[in-house]
């Protein structure tokens, strides 16, 4: 019975849409002649085009749905080495760090009841989990529940995975194309069920690719602006104008290393990297001073100079 009622209701909606459509065509024909019908047809074609162009037009209503929408586990089958590198990177645990963990639990935009959370509570996810853009507020509640419940297994699944850079962020303008990946080279037949083609992205090897998240400072577009990484701002406004010529990728993705060092858990490597980036000179001077006639006081002067060879301010992120 319920099914028949729904069917009747659907037919009523279709009849109503047909009526509106016919009315609009007749009205346009009356006002603009056949040109009106042409305009209407163009509008329709444009609407269809827009809906086909978006990679993920439909918003996920559950966290499981969102994770599945951006599932990149199939990448591992062919790109095993790169995937293994990524798994060790900070990108693979983008909301797991001490700061993010505490901020999300006790920060100014945290909530006590997960049901109160909306996407507005997670401005940090603009970069730390950009997939949230393709989800509803219900998903934000589920994420809040995982954070408050310290559900590490779920939190670990919320990361910057292959599709964030090679789909979502790989385009220069607009939305990524459906079923398209973006890389350094084009691939006409990419062996994947969902992503069958790869388009060469002009920004994939450029600093702006990283700058989309490792950004310019305060994120002023939010209702409550948040201060975050200023790294790309420093690169643009200090490094390049001072003669710097390297890209982010040359130092942090050498030979396409997707572990994107430094990994702050590898303490020795971080120290070695900092040592290279921040050479230090030490000069000393020993002299004798005579503040009071006849009383000689030995003095020691130590002068230190640290010069930055990095492509951005240190520290930053």
């Amino acid at each position, binding site marked *: 019975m319920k099914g028949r009622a729904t069917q009747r209701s659907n037919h009523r909606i279709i009849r109503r849409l047909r009526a509106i459509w016919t009315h609009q065509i007749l009205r346009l024909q009356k006002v603009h002649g056949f040109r009106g019908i042409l305009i209407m047809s163009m509008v329709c074609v444009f609407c269809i085009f827009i809906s086909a162009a978006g990679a993920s037009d439909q918003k996920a209503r559950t966290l499981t749905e969102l994770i599945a929408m951006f599932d990149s586990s199939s990448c591992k089958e062919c790109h095993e080495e790169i995937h293994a590198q990524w798994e060790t990177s900070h990108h693979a645990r983008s909301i797991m760090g001490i700061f993010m963990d505490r901020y999300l639990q006790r920060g*100014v935009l945290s909530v006590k009841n997960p049901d109160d959370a909306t996407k507005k509570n997670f401005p940090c996810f603009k970069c730390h989990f950009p997939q949230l853009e393709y989800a509803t507020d219900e998903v934000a509640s589920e994420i809040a529940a995982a954070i408050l419940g310290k559900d590490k297994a779920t939190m670990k699944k919320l990361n910057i995975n292959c599709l964030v850079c090679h789909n979502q962020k790989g385009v220069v303008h607009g939305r990524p194309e459906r079923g398209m990946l973006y890389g350094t080279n084009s691939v006409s037949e990419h062996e994947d069920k969902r992503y069958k083609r790869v388009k060469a992205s002009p920004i994939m090897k450029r600093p702006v690719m990283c700058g989309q998240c490792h950004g310019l400072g305060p994120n002023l577009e939010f209702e*409550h602006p948040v201060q975050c990484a200023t790294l790309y701002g420093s690169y643009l406004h200090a490094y390049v104008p001072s003669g710097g010529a390297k890209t982010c990728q040359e130092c942090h993705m050498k030979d396409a290393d997707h572990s994107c060092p430094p990994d702050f858990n590898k303490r020795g490597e971080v120290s070695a990297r*900092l040592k290279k980036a921040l050479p230090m000179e*030490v000069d000393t001077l*020993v002299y004798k001073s005579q503040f009071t006639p006849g009383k000689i006081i030995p003095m*020691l002067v*130590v002068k*230190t100079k640290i*010069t930055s060879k990095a492509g951005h301010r240190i520290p930053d992120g």
Partner: protein
Amino acid sequence: MPQSTTSLNKTMVYGPTKKLGIIRDTSIQPFGAKEETFQVRVSESAKKVNIRVDLSYQPRPGDVYPIHSVIRTLAMDSH
């Protein structure tokens, strides 16, 4: 850093602690240098002085990443 708020609306509830632009930036910019000079009075009887200069990065108290350690021995009586 500038903030979008005029500080006159309800976003003021978070107060100045969240307007991080008021924090002084002490980072080192690319090609920039940080120079420091330390002057120490030494005991008159000292013949030799051992100095050690350590540079480290501490993102949090106690979380130390050593960067440089320079050790020098200076003779005081040579001057």
